[in-house]
């Protein structure tokens, strides 16, 4: 058989490898800083861009899209050509992909700490960067599918199916969730509102975990574990079944992030059922990964790469067992809004994504640089630091989540809340926050060893830019006679991609379409009115500062929550919330009814003023960072008219022509009233400051259905 010769170019693999290591170091350091800020809230030194709520999105985005993202591209650019016996389709597209992605990360690293955010978790980037992400993603897709088309192998190995599913699904998810109308160059409003926005966001959020943190890493696992152990995958049939089952089921599971929220019950039930079923294909993948190492356990004892793979795949098994459990309504009632979720996701990222990435890079370095790894011993120490770091990180947070949730729910014999002061439940878990920061530090020390090892290995060797290989052309590739549908499908990459797309769209549409119908059918609560111009500006400050990262605005229908926060949240209350601000974590108390004067949590304007300036002066044990700049900054009202008009386009019923003139008059009037109220309380502040708008927004929260003093009437409708 005539063999064709061709060359693999390792340049992009090397670049993605370096990017993975660099952004990993930065993303983890930002996370560690955030962990310490939760123990020492004054660490932000009064600087906006160093404050927890501004750097937390930077940490999550850097960890997911920069560290894990570059690791995915490294795996794809290294393994795809070798599995398909052809170089990547286009070097130019590869370079655009690499540099475009790094520019996006730099843009994120600058804009997120500056407060440019859409306030949707893991989708915080503002619209111009979103467009760049979509374009670079398309470039990546063309390069991937182009490579598939010019391959020399008839059938496509399972790792590449996972890459294809990743590409096609992330494209659908990212575009759908980021639909927004621009207000200005760096500000936009989500086209969805309230419950609908929440459902789209968590459909995206959950599937970002599925198709960015899971499927590409399963592809990575199916390539690098066989390579590192020199053994074929345990069961190829299992890999086919678990691939299709996984991508089919994952897409439905998003609503489990919104249990007991104002989301319709049927959607919640759908999310739970599919989350439980998801356990099977997830564990199918884990079993397949671990059993690939059968007969090689003697190697696992000595080889740090295999050790990392084993712990990584085991962490995948743990978090995919925990995920379905957390989606059970009874467990979720306890775990949601607590640190339990943080522990859960870090088993996934530190264990599954981190360990697989480290293992892959330790395996690649000697091969890319034609030398031995600088220090196997150092890699072993890294393994132990990473493993113990991950456990020290997560186990205290499980306790923290459990403890705090039980304290929230505890009643005295007399029927009152046992811990009516939210802060008591925070101080109780601070030691666990300290242990988490310790665990994170261990993990980071391990990462420093990893950097040294990579650096020294690269310095000791010589980069192997080109590797030659040969294979028969595709027309002459061996075949196996009669082919069934799946084998034929694998032979047709574009059709395979379309099949994967259809599979994920079925779940997406069944979830999303009824929600669009719901929106047009939600009986508007007549008492719920659009925000005033000043409140709208205040809301944008709330979004800019990332308040939603520590404060939810979603009271669940539990006695303990209604007692603490007031009447539970209704779907009709958030119809003008573009974007929604339900939040997913309560490091501080829920704020859904912060403005209701008759509730126990109500605080006067002066309290909010002093609290933003210096939270510890009011609550010495508070972990809230100070926000002094909100006190000092003048409110920028230059885009007010544009904001009102954009909201009108999105269906918010401001009167015709309101944006031109009247809106500003109303804003000034409300601002002077609040400034006067503060003055009466002994605080002399200009009505043009940001704090005035923020107070206006806070005092509006949850008040609409309390206007006539009978909020329960809306429960029966």
């Amino acid at each position: 058989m005539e063999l064709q010769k061709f060359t693999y170019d390792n340049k992009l693999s090397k670049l993605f490898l370096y990017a993975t290591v660099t952004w990993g170091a930065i993303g983890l350091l930002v996370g560690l800083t955030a962990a310490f800020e939760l123990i020492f809230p004054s660490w932000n030194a009064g600087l906006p861009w160093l404050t927890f709520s501004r750097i937390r999105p930077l940490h999550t985005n850097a960890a997911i899209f920069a560290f894990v993202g570059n690791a995915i591209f490294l795996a794809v650019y290294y393994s795809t050509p070798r599995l398909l016996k052809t170089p990547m389709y286009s070097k130019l597209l590869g370079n655009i992909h690499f540099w475009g992605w790094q520019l996006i990360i730099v843009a994120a690293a600058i804009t997120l700490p500056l407060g440019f955010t859409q306030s949707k978790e893991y989708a915080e980037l503002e619209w111009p960067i979103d467009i760049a992400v979509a374009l670079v993603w398309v470039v990546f897709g063309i390069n991937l599918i182009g490579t598939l088309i010019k391959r020399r192998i008839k059938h496509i190995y399972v790792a590449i199916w996972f890459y294809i599913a990743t590409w096609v699904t992330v494209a659908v998810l990212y575009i759908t969730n980021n639909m927004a109308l621009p207000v200005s160059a760096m500000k936009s409003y989500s086209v969805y509102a309230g419950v609908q926005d929440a459902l789209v966001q968590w459909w995206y959020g959950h599937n970002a975990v599925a198709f960015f943190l899971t499927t590409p890493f399963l592809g990575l696992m199916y390539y690098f574990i066989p390579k590192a152990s020199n053994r074929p995958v345990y069961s190829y049939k299992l890999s086919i079944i678990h691939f299709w089952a996984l991508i089919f089921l994952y897409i439905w599971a998003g609503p489990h992030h919104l249990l007991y929220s104002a989301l319709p019950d049927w959607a919640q039930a759908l999310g739970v059922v599919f989350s439980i079923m998801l356990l099977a294909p997830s564990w199918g993948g884990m079993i397949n990964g671990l059993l690939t190492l059968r007969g090689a356990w003697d190697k696992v004892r000595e080889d740090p790469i295999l050790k990392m793979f084993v712990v990584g795949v085991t962490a995948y098994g743990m978090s995919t067992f925990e995920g379905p459990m957390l989606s059970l309504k009874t467990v979720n009632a306890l775990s949601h809004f607590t640190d339990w979720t943080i522990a859960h996701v870090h088993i996934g990222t530190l264990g599954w994504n981190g360990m697989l990435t480290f293992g892959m890079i330790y395996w690649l370095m000697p091969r890319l640089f034609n030398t031995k790894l600088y220090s196997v011993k150092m890699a072993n120490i890294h393994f132990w630091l990473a493993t113990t770091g991950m456990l020290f990180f997560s186990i205290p947070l499980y306790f923290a989540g459990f403890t705090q949730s039980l304290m929230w729910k505890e009643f005295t014999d007399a029927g009152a809340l046992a811990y009516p002061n939210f802060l008591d439940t925070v101080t109780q878990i601070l030691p666990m926050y300290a242990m988490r920061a310790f665990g994170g530090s261990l993990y980071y020390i391990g990462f420093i060893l990893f950097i040294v090892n990579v650096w020294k290995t690269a310095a000791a060797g010589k980069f192997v830019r080109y590797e030659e290989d040969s294979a028969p052309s595709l027309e002459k590739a061996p075949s196996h006679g009669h082919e069934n549908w799946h084998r034929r499908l694998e032979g047709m990459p574009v059709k395979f991609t379309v099949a994967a797309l259809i599979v994920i769209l079925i779940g997406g549409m069944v979830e999303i379409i009824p929600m669009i119908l719901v929106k047009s059918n939600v009986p508007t609560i007549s008492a719920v009115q659009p925000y005033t111009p000043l409140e709208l500006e205040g809301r944008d400050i709330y979004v800019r500062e990332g308040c939603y990262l520590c404060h939810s605005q979603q009271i669940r229908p539990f006695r303990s929550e209604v007692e603490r926060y007031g009447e539970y949240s209704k779907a009709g209350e958030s119809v003008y919330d573009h974007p929604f601000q339900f939040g997913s974590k309560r490091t501080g108390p829920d704020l859904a009814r912060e403005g209701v004067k008759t509730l126990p949590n109500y605080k006067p304007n002066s309290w909010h003023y002093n609290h933003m300036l210096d939270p510890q002066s009011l609550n010495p044990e508070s972990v809230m960072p100070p926000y002094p700049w909100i006190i000092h900054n003048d409110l920028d009202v230059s885009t007010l008219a544009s904001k009102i008009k954009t909201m009108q386009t999105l269906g918010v019923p401001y009167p015709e022509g309101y944006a031109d003139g009247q809106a500003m008059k109303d804003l000034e009037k409300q601002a002077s009233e609040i400034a006067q109220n503060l003055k009466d309380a002994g605080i002399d502040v200009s009505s043009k400051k940001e704090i005035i708008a923020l107070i206006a927004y806070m005092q509006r929260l949850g008040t609409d259905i309390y206007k006539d003093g009978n909020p329960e009437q809306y429960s029966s409708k």
Partner: protein
Amino acid sequence: MKIVMNTLSQINGVEIYPIISLIIFFIFFVVMAYFVFNLDKGYISDMKNMPLEEDENDSSVNDLENKF
């Protein structure tokens, strides 16, 4: 919750959504499993060994053995 449930009940047959989705998945899964278990062994063996094959025919100028 009732506020939304009552609304949703106005959408014709909304309660069928979860059931339809389960049925779609079940049929999909059974058909797929049937075909997968009927795949021929030679093909499975070839596919399994695909990542390992490249080492055997590796014509790279570099020795990939004992790199660790």
